[in-house]
């Protein structure tokens, strides 16, 4: 049996999405900037996709800018949002994705900003009182906080963050890479300046994403060289990627409730099974369904000598999971998120992340294998 429980790293492309992309790849190859019919046809395809995305998020197409993915979108929002507005102070937390933390640190190192980190509790909740204090004590700030943590799943109340930011006239960038298409985002209500999507996290293709840029904030491009994306992002558009992104969003919204129930049930079931079968098992981050992203479960295993063998043994058993974020796997420095919540470094952590394609049988299989591994170790 092969089980893919690493859907926070990336997801398989939905067949319906691929079908739509395939059609464009096979037949519509024009450059959307060309004025002849090959080009115009493709331009229409892109604008239709933009309209679809905007419609689902209750915003206007003119606020959706397609990018090569989440990292580019995060970088654009942070770099341009800060530099173009002369911001001197930014606030984030140590458990943000590297696309956010490293970008802010790069700006700090170049002397452009002072960077403050919010207090984070042991479950990955950021301290919103601390946010208010920092906003009060500093001039206009740039705030970057993620909707759901990609390693431990803890959710942040971004509506509240948006309100606080508005109160102090701060710029709010929200990395929603893990939650877009998993929860509804209503941009007519949410007080956010920048919001980010990577299509491959919601059964769309890699290499495509978007940045929502609120009308009330103006930035200059990060990538120059062409009038694409209304002069905001130079470069020939990834047409099929954009088509796939829109289709993936459409499916995610169409089936959102059904998927949420299914995946949450899997997660709850896995928590129960682990608690029943493995002594001294714990979880990193929030596990309560109200406070935690339903696709992610970070398991904290009992202390063991050969911690690194855990993932190896799971892989031998055909189970794909992750020790942390894929974007930093392979490094030995340990997870910055687990360090950030002061998790016991002696207890190995494995992130299991689910999708609509996973089943209860798979959970049973995985729990049985974990049991084997832990018994051998114990």
């Amino acid at each position: 049996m092969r089980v893919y429980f690493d859907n926070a790293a990336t997801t398989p492309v939905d067949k319906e999405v691929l079908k739509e992309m395939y059609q464009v790849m096979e037949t519509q190859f024009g450059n959307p900037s060309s004025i002849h019919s090959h080009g115009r046809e493709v331009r229409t395809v892109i604008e239709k996709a933009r309209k679809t995305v905007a419609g689902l998020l209750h915003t206007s197409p003119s606020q959706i800018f397609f990018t090569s993915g989440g990292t580019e979108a995060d970088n654009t929002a942070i770099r341009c949002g800060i530099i173009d507005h002369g911001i001197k102070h930014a606030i984030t937390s140590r458990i943000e994705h590297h696309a956010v933390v490293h970008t802010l640190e790069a700006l700090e190192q170049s002397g452009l900003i002072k960077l403050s980190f919010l207090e984070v509790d042991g479950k990955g909740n950021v301290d919103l009182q601390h946010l208010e204090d920092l906003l009060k004590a500093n001039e206009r700030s740039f705030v970057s906080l993620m909707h759901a943590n990609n390693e431990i799943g803890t959710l942040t109340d971004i509506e509240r963050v948006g309100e606080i930011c508005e109160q102090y006239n701060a710029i709010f960038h929200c990395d929603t890479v893990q939650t877009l298409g998993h929860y509804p985002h209503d941009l007519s209500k949410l007080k956010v300046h920048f919001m980010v999507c990577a299509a491959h996290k919601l059964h769309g293709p890699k290499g495509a994403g978007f940045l929502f840029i609120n009308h009330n904030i103006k930035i200059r491009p990060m990538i120059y060289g062409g009038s694409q994306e209304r002069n905001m992002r130079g470069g020939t558009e990834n047409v099929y990627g954009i088509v796939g992104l829109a289709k993936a969003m459409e499916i995610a919204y169409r089936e959102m409730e059904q998927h949420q129930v299914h995946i949450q049930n899997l997660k709850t079931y896995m928590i129960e099974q682990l608690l029943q079968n493995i002594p001294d098992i714990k979880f990193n981050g929030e596990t309560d369904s109200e406070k935690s992203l339903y696709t992610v479960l970070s398991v904290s295993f009992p202390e063991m000598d050969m911690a690194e063998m855990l993932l190896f043994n799971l892989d031998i058993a055909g189970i794909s999971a992750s020790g942390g974020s894929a974007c930093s796997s392979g490094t030995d420095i340990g997870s910055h998120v687990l360090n950030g919540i002061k998790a016991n470094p002696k207890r190995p952590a494995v992130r299991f992340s689910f999708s609509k394609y996973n089943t209860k049988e798979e959970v049973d299989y995985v729990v049985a294998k974990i049991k084997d591994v832990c018994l051998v170790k114990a």
Partner: protein
Amino acid sequence: MNLPIYLDNNATTPLDPRVLEAMLPYFNSKFGNAASRNHAFGWAAEEGVDYAREQVAQLIGATEKEIIFTSGATESDNLAIKGVFEMYKEKGNHIITCVTEHKAVLDACKHLEKLGAQVTYLPVKEDGLIDLGQLEAAMTEKTILVSIMYGNNEIGVIQPVKEIAAIAHKFGALFMTDATQAVGKIPVNVIVDGIDLMAFTGHKMYGPKGVGALYVRRKNPRVKVTAQMDGGGHERGMRSGTLNVPGIVGLGKAAELCRLEMEEESKRLSALRDKLQSSLLEMEESYLNGNKENRLPHVTNISFKYVEGEGLMMAMKDLAVSSGSACTSASLEPSYVLKSLGLSDDLAHSSIRFGLGRFTTEEEVDFAIEQTKKAVNHLRELSPLWEMFKEGVDLDSVEWAEH
């Protein structure tokens, strides 16, 4: 024959079915994140990326570690130019480029000027090539980068890159080239040509859109660029972001096909191009733009005097051609490339770029010749300027009455 006939292969090329086939497994069977280091899905994706890196490196005579995958040539151009400016700012702030570069290079340079860069925009000669003497004269101690494109996207002229590289190196500067139009079409070898950084993209060589690469030299000298996007530290820290695995696999396959088929394909295309070109140049008052010899095999750019530009495009609606770069075609401005060759606005407007490609047939070229001739002749019949020209009036000496 399907109409309109696509002769705009400098704007973008169709995806080769063999490339598409290579990409397909990476969407939903080998769908892993190439950075997932501890399971089979990740390894399968990484394997696909590694193989593609080899295929791409082989096409340009580089090693795998010198290939940085990006979202396309524009991002590569931006990364190279801005990345060098930041990395080498201790050494100097002077960049030399040329007026006929793609917007991706020009706009990146303009942006850097605001940040303190000194940029020299070399003019071009009438044939579209830069003057090497002028380049040498422009070099200073502060020059960190010379960025000159390999093949021009509008007129197809090939710059003397080897000589340019030698001049840049003589003054201790790096040589970067936007080779978007040249890679896959003509032999490009980064060692032979002395290239330090090179940008190119998939969709100009029958690969997918949304994926490109930047070659960054690792030896003699070891070149470094400051990342323009931070995050997970992918691509040796120079370009973060989850790898577009299917796109990269497609770029790799496209590179391999180009490498294997280039020799024959360029012969076939240049024969077809020459046929098209000589037939159209048989017409009175039609002129070839750019150097005739040093040119990409598949491109020709021809001006038809005494023909109104927009009318010409309308009359040629069965041909998908362009009057300039797609990236600037939405604007009604005449081509800045043609203007820098010395063409008037009017003549630049009545110029057509024909870009042949892998799927262009002789039948299509014959049709294009016929259609273009018909359109030009028809518009000239309606044109009072043409009539005056035929009557021997020197139009340049006419003083037009103001309304």
